[in-house]
């Protein structure tokens, strides 16, 4: 199980690097799609079929198509000097590296003791729905407001006239 997980993680990493170092925007978008699929596989491994499929539906069916659509619409092609390393970005990257090491170190030094909350792991849609509409009712409502804001915002920015 561990090997399978890490092989999958390796693929995630490869696709993630493919996204951030890619030269062709469209290829990067596809790499991102494959990355999302590996994450969906992780959800399947953990036993949560529901989340895995939702992940594929939302990302593959919606988000990546949207990104690809905009890439074609804007006519973005290969841009050879798309990234260059200036002094500022270099220091940023070094700081980020130290930050990452710090986070890993901090997490490794502490004892994270997980206590099982239930006798078994409930991955059914019914279980998730119960939690969503009882304990997480208010976040759910706020998320709906957030979606509405997002829709109106995207509409306002993307439409032609003022």
């Amino acid at each position, binding site marked *: 199980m561990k090997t399978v997980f890490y092989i999958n993680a390796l693929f995630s990493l490869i696709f993630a690097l493919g996204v*951030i170092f890619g030269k062709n925007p469209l290829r990067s978008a596809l790499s991102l799609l494959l990355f999302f699929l590996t994450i969906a596989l992780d959800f399947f491994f953990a036993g949560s079929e529901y989340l895995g499929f939702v992940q594929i539906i939302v990302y593959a069916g919606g988000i990546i198509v949207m990104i690809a659509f905009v890439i074609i619409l804007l006519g973005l092609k290969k841009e050879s000097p798309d*990234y260059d390393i200036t002094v500022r970005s270099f220091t940023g990257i070094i700081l980020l590296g130290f930050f990452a090491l710090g986070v890993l170190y901090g997490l490794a030094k502490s004892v994270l003791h997980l206590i099982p909350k239930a006798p078994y792991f409930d991955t059914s849609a019914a279980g998730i729905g119960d939690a969503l509409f009882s304990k997480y009712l208010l976040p759910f409502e706020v998320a709906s407001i957030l979606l509405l804001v997002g829709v109106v915002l995207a509409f306002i920015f993307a439409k032609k006239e003022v």
Partner: protein
Amino acid sequence: MLGFNDYLLVSVILFFVGALGVLFRRNLIYILMSLELMLNSINLTLIGLAKYSNDTNPQVLILLILVVAAVEVAVGLGLAINLMRVKKTVDVDLFKSLKG
């Protein structure tokens, strides 16, 4: 034996790969995609947490984070279209007209 720490390790690494992309790229579309990487790697921690503490709640959080991610992309792409219309480029480093 696969444990929670493996999930945590992978998710931290992927998160910072995404953050690297945000800092490193100049094209707005790439930055958007890197933001998606960051949000998704967070989901990986949550699914590990759900699995190893037999808890339903992190799964709900994953669903809601999906909502946030979708909104972020939609808004970001709308912004990109607007920028292309107004400034004819989506290269964020070329936006320097606001410098006092």
